[in-house]
């Protein structure tokens, strides 16, 4: 390569300083040299220290703070956890009875799901991932409508605008920019609405995660991102997904605070999310929350978790069960007795029975609805295609 070039004659530096430079800290020079005016952008735009997440997951249960927690909140969360677990069990059973096509359970993650629903005000929006059925139900949306996607009669069962819940999002992390855009739009329109977007540990690897968090931070959009780190993306464990100190540390790179929280401590998740929501509402911008939790069930009913993890791996997490943690705290403070717990169980049973009953009815479907809502009104092309299907159906009937 003896060509006219910048590197007078060689592709390789003629001399490379032979010695390996010392540690950068040792070699770091004084900030400014003689007579030097640093150009703009010289210093970090913000101090990174406040963005760094808690060094260990934030907890309330099992700490002195538990003694001061609001008893009403504790009871309500507990009831919701019990109902949530029962819901997961019922929905999984419905897959076995052919009443649901598939169900991704959140057993073990109920604290995150319930807290995500309850940290929001009525005007706020929730952006669930495909796993977050429970959060949507906990928000008060009709469970049968929430299960529509998984039953298979339509792609989405509830009205997003009426419920302020986006459709369950299957393409991972794609719902995050939606949450940012909606929160941004709300602020532009003068509303103090906040959006809470849910995503899994695996979903944080997608480009959409990055783009959403960056837009949110640049626009100071009132949005909260909750990563439920349940240890796995289907079979792939966290250490094959990221080498970061924690997923919450990703916040630093966007200039928003990161919070790390015990995802099985319902009070802690509720507190951290509530703080983040209020911060967003007050104009403080977005927060990234990582909740450390564990997916106790397989990825879905169709998955075989024994292929990629040992039954023994679950033990420390069963010992750290969100229901047990909260029940213990309630008992420690004598806030419940056995009769009350039984009443909660009974209520959950009733909810499950009602769900079973309603899900056992066959949905009434009109094949001609295939052509509805593709556009605001059917195109000529769709009218022709609909007429063809209509004729087929008529011929079948005749």
């Amino acid at each position, binding site marked *: 390569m003896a060509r006219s070039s910048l590197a007078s004659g060689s592709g390789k530096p003629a001399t490379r300083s032979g010695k390996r430079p010392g540690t950068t800290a040792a070699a770091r020079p004084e900030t400014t040299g003689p007579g030097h005016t640093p150009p703009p952008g010289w210093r970090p735009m913000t101090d990174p220290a406040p963005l760094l997440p808690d060094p260990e997951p934030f907890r309330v249960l099992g700490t002195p703070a538990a003694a001061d927690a609001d008893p009403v909140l504790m009871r309500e969360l507990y009831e919701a956890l019990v109902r949530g677990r029962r819901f997961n069990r019922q929905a999984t059973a419905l897959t076995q009875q052919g009443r649901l096509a598939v169900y991704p359970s959140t057993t073990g993650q109920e604290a995150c799901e319930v807290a995500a629903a309850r940290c929001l005000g009525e005007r706020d929006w929730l952006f669930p991932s495909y796993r977050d059925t429970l959060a949507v139900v906990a928000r008060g949306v009709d469970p049968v409508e929430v299960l529509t996607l998984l039953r298979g009669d*339509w*792609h*989405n069962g509830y*009205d*997003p*605008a*009426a419920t302020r819940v*986006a*459709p369950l999002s299957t*393409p991972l992390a*794609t719902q*995050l*920019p*939606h*949450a*940012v*855009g*909606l*929160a*941004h*739009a*709300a602020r*532009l*329109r003068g509303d103090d609405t906040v*959006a809470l977007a849910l995503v899994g540990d695996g979903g944080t690897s997608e*480009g*959409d995660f*990055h*783009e*959403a968090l*960056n*837009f949110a931070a*640049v626009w100071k959009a009132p949005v909260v991102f909750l990563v439920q780190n349940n240890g796995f993306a289907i079979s792939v464990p966290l250490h094959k997904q990221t080498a970061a100190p924690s997923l919450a540390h990703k916040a630093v790179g966007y200039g928003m605070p990161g919070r790390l929280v015990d995802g099985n401590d319902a009070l802690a998740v509720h507190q951290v999310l509530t703080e983040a929501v209020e911060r967003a509402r007050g104009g403080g911008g977005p927060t990234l929350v990582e909740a450390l939790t564990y997916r106790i069930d397989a990825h879905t009913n169709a998955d075989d978790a024994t292929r990629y993890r040992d039954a023994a791996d679950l033990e420390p997490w069963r010992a750290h069960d969100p229901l047990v943690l909260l029940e213990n705290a309630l008992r420690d403070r004598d806030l419940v007795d056995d009769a009350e717990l039984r009443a909660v169980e009974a209520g959950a049973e009733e909810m499950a029975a009602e769900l079973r009953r309603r899900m056992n009815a066959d949905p009434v479907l009109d094949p001609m609805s295939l052509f*509805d*809502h*593709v*556009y*605001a009104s059917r*195109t*000529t*092309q769709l009218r022709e295609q609909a007429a063809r299907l209509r004729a087929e159906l008529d011929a079948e009937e005749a």
Partner: protein
Amino acid sequence: MGTATAPAAPAKAARKPATMAQALNRALHDSLAADPTVHVLGEDVGTLGGVFRITDGLAAAFGPERVTDTPLAEAGILGTAVGMAMYGLRPVVEMQFDAFGYPALEQLISHVAKMRNRTRGTMPMPITVRIPYGGGIGGVEHHSDSSEAYYLHTPGLQVVTPATVADAYGLLRASIASDDPVIFLEPKRLYWGKADWSPDEPETVPPLGRAVVRRPGRSATLITYGPSVPVCLEAAEAATAEGWDLEVVDLRSLMPFDDETVCASVRRTGRAVVVHESSGFAGTGAEIAARVMERCFHHLEAPVLRVTGFDIPYPPPMLERYHLPGVDRVLDAVARLQWED
């Protein structure tokens, strides 16, 4: 929401020479003025006014909240636009060049195109995605793609492309006013073409989904759109020397597709050539040729032919003229329409 009449319309303007770029700029301006829910967002659309200056002056007129320079991330731009639409806004997104829309394809296919359908009509997506497309401007790689076939094959999207200054204004206003998503393809090499025009002409906002006969003729029909419309008109003029009287149909909307206008023409002429720039295989021309054949079979004196870009990556500037369908190639195809029959 989405009304197409400005509340305080300026006095009627007289026709005067304007470029397509100016007409598009005016359409954005008028849409922003007419409807407070319209927001423009994209890379460099604010302070700079866009690399093609289509958004020139809009940020100054409407402020950075209505006309926003986004971070550099196309999926993020379209994804946040989805969220804005969910909250009742009407985002107009600019993709800087055709090939730079590809990072946003997942958001487009899996959300923008499907959201209304998934939510049984409760969550419409009145998003307009403006994309400068096509070649002929000496752009280096990734700057001259014609990506319309990807969009056309995605149910739920409308695909619109103007070929004249007047249509540029009217179709863009209609697209922004539409309650369904529109991929609005701007033929970048026509940006600087001038025509006498006024935004106040009565036919100024044509309905989407309607083709137009740009030149009536009786021997054969040239079916085309966007940057190839002027090529076909020129070819039709040249063809008179051969004694051919060619009809030129400008589709304007590729989806919805105007079967009526196209088939009426072909049934009359009995012969058709489809002309576009993008590569041919599984391209727009395939659909048009197939449907014309299906619908007009017994009227056809010859197969419906296609004149398109080759099935190759878009070539470098110095070679693009060999790739682009030009007047000669169109006339060659017309000559192959089995006139001896």
